[in-house]
């Protein structure tokens, strides 16, 4: 079972920031958005195609534009190297027929940056195995 903890989220941040294509695709993507893995929530701050910071201290002074919240079980399937049908895409999970991911907030920002957003979420499949993650320092 994947633990979407600080080790994991920092490793994803590195995977996004090390991705050369994301610097091109996401160069106009500047926004704060919320990712919810069950009860564990993070606000991700993207500035010009780079994740500048991620915080798990989410409160009234942590603004975000849009939110993607899903049960841990949904994200576990989404982040598999070869995700199963109906879990390979945020739109697959969010479609009213399936209801496995909730989109909230100012979804216009999401639509405006959808290509960059989906590209960076796809990088979740590049996060290394648990044993490698735990050898890393945590920054969140």
């Amino acid at each position: 079972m994947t633990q979407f903890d600080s080790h994991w989220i920092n490793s994803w941040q590195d995977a996004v920031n090390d991705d050369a294509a994301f610097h091109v695709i996401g160069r106009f993507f500047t926004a704060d958005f919320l990712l919810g893995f069950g009860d564990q929530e993070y606000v991700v701050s993207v500035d010009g195609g780079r994740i500048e910071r991620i915080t798990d201290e989410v409160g009234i002074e942590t603004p975000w534009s849009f939110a993607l919240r899903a049960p841990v079980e949904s994200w576990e399937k989404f982040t598999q190297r070869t995700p199963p049908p109906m879990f390979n895409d945020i739109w697959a999970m969010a479609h009213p027929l399936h209801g496995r991911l909730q989109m909230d907030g100012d979804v216009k920002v999401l639509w405006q940056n959808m290509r960059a957003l989906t590209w960076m979420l796809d990088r979740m499949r590049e996060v290394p195995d648990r044993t490698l993650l735990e050898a890393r320092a945590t920054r969140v």
Partner: protein
Amino acid sequence: MTAIREPIVGGYIHVPYGGYDYRVFYEEAGEGIPLVCLHTAGTDSREWRHQLADPEITDRFRVIAFDMPRHGKSIPPIGFEREDYRLTATFYSEFVMAFCEALELERPVIMGSSMGGNICLHIALKFEPRVRALVAIEACQYSPGWYLSWLAHPHVHGGEACATSVFGLMAPQSPDEYRWETWWYYSQGGPGVFKGDLYFYSVDHDFRVLCDRISGDVPIYLMTGVYDFACTPEMTAETGKKIKGSETIIMEDIGHFPMCENPETFKRYLMPVLDKVAAGERKLAGAGAGSAS
């Protein structure tokens, strides 16, 4: 070195419909039974380039893929700039048949994907004597949820948003080069065209009470990929159960755009269907129910 030349040839035909003369682009290859291929919403006939260039298909079929008005190289009707485009089942089904009539096709096979699959059900109901068989890919009786304002909004990049919203409909097993080629097609639709097509796909197309009115006299093949989250295998199977004479085929490791996201995998499922069509076989299951495989 000899350059590779594909056997596909393109042309324009004027299709009279509804008092207007539509200038329609189409591509074709091969000889034999006419096989008219319908593209998905918001894109064009390039989706069928692999099948148009496959000699194992074109040796028995005259494969024809055309661009609906407003799509690809088929220009929109005069006055389009004043309209909120919405494709309807009536226009779509009648226009497909008008195109076939303009080309003087004798009882063609109609094969379409997504909205092109859904319209096959309407053609089955309204134009059965004029078609030989229907291959409805990623089709089902009702496919709600896609008629979204964001797909034609001045604050959103239409090309990137339309293309990215469908990217996840393709299977992760499909080759990257073909998935991104499909994304590219989608990025090139005119403003509001994808959304307008989805009016048919998600609103005007509702066959839930009409499926059992199809006679079953024309073979209908329902083919759906397991990664299609807009029209799931379960939705197609449910539809197939209600259509007499239909056959439901569920395709592994593929999504909503079989012909262009993974032509090799699609071919494994398509060829047996085309064999049956060529043989004139009618796969009639028992009265009132289709079969599944």
